[in-house]
């Protein structure tokens, strides 16, 4: 029989808990998953090369790595760069700082990056895994030493409220990614299918599953209404809300599938463009 132990019921401190289960597994997996994504993402964006593959065939079609889409500017003469015709604004700008690599990815990563950073699901994930507020339910949170203590999302993190604004822009990326998928089914104007096409097509599909399950979209399509049967558009609003709610219940699932898929697709196209692996396809 165990002896009686003295205990202060209101003890505080990171990790303080009477839980006996393996509560640390979830934050550890998140820490590993998100850190791996960030390391790969920044590494890939920093490379500034091997983001395009068309097997040297000119004309409509080719694979564009998702981390580099859309191509706002293109630096010519870079290994594995897309043809200039794919650039929205033309040649690489001269004002670009020398110390930064001329990577189209660095110009466009901010919007999807901030969209995910401020996402209600990812907030749970990284607040638990990175900031320990709290690491798990009923496990002691990291104590704040400043005078006013914990401020949640009322202090610096009030910035989380820009999620809605980034959502407006993030939706446009899905359209761009679907165009990239369409592009990937052609090479030199000829229709075909490659493993790269499938990977590039999966990207906007899973991304749409994630984005259209967003809490902000759920609010805008119907969540903001108090009565669906009181107006002409109420029924349509309620049906849309139910559809978004279905996706919203799977928001975490789509968040991770889309995150892993984009890394796999990006890495695959980089390796194909570098000639490290050969893309199985119907063209060759």
């Amino acid at each position: 029989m165990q002896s009686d132990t003295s205990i202060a019921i209101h003890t505080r401190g990171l990790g303080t808990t009477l839980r006996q289960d393996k509560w640390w597994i979830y934050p550890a997996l998140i820490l590993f998953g998100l850190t791996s994504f960030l390391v790969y993402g920044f590494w890939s964006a920093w490379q500034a090369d091997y983001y395009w593959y068309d097997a040297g065939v000119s004309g409509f079609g080719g694979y564009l790595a998702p981390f580099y889409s859309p191509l706002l500017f293109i630096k010519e003469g870079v290994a594995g760069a897309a043809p200039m015709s794919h650039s929205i604004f033309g040649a690489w700008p001269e004002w670009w700082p020398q110390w930064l690599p001329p990577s189209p990815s660095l110009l466009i990563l901010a919007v999807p990056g901030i969209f995910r950073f401020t996402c209600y699901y990812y907030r749970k994930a990284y607040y638990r895994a990175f900031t320990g507020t709290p690491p798990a339910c009923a496990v002691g949170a990291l104590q704040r030493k400043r005078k006013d203590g914990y401020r949640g999302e009322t202090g610096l993190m009030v910035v989380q409220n820009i999620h809605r604004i980034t959502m407006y822009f993030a939706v446009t990326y899905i359209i761009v990614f679907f165009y990239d998928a369409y592009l990937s089914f052609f090479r030199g104007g000829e229709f075909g299918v490659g493993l790269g096409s499938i990977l590039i097509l999966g990207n906007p599909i899973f991304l749409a599953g994630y984005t259209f399950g967003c809490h902000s979209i759920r609010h805008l399509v119907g969540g903001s209404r108090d009565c669906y049967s009181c107006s002409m558009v109420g029924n349509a609003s309620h049906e849309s809300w139910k559809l978004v709610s279905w996706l919203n219940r799977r928001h975490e699932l789509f968040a991770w599938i889309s995150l892993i898929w984009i890394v796999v697709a990006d890495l695959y196209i980089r390796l194909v463009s570098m000639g490290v692996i050969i893309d199985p396809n119907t063209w060759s």
Partner: protein
Amino acid sequence: MDKRTFRVYRGDNERGELKSYEVEINEGMVVLDVIHQIQAEQENDLAVRWNCKAGKCGSCSMEINGKPKLACMTRMNEYEPGQTIVVTPLKAFPVLKDLVSDVSWNYRQNERIKPVKLAPEAKTDRGYVMYQKDVDRIQEFRKCIECYLCQDVCHILRDHDKQDAFIGPRFMIRVASLEMHPLDIEDRLPELKEEFGSGYCNITRCCTDVCPEHINLTDNGIIPLKERVVDRFYDPVTILRRKIFGPRKKKLPPINK
């Protein structure tokens, strides 16, 4: 028949001890049964609050092996044979004695929330044509049994002692149930943001995880409220729309003929 060791908190708000008890477990027992057995056979002055033993009154909230749970709904066969069970009172509230916490702070929060306000044209004795889809969301919140497990697990109250700044998840969903009510025209968003501290919630979803009524507090209550706050104070598109077209007039359900 199986023998188990229970370690139960005995003490007050400042200090106490985890006292060990050997108990015999029969098939079908829940943790509250074991506590009652200890009270009947070994420790007559062990304080525990309980009432319905059916998971509907929300009285027997406590922490079992560190997790906020209803003792009457926690079956003994959830635990491994031979596993020691540690039972402590709710950590976020002052302990009165042993397993009984003083949850009266919650009652005061409830009083701060503005009640339903009907539009003058909505006042009638005939009732309204109410469709299920219009009340689905608020009916989910009405399942709340006020066990305050969500309040207990919320780290803002539990670890950061922000009782003066944050009203807690249970009352966030009470505000949500009023804000989403088809007949209510009261505006609670300014105090939701400032006095009730909606911004303190960082969406770590523990309130949803511990709810014995499986209410999705986070996705269906707290986040929709935070989105309404974004509508009002942060989204330039909705702010501009309101500036140009004015606030959206609430359309009410039809009155019964």
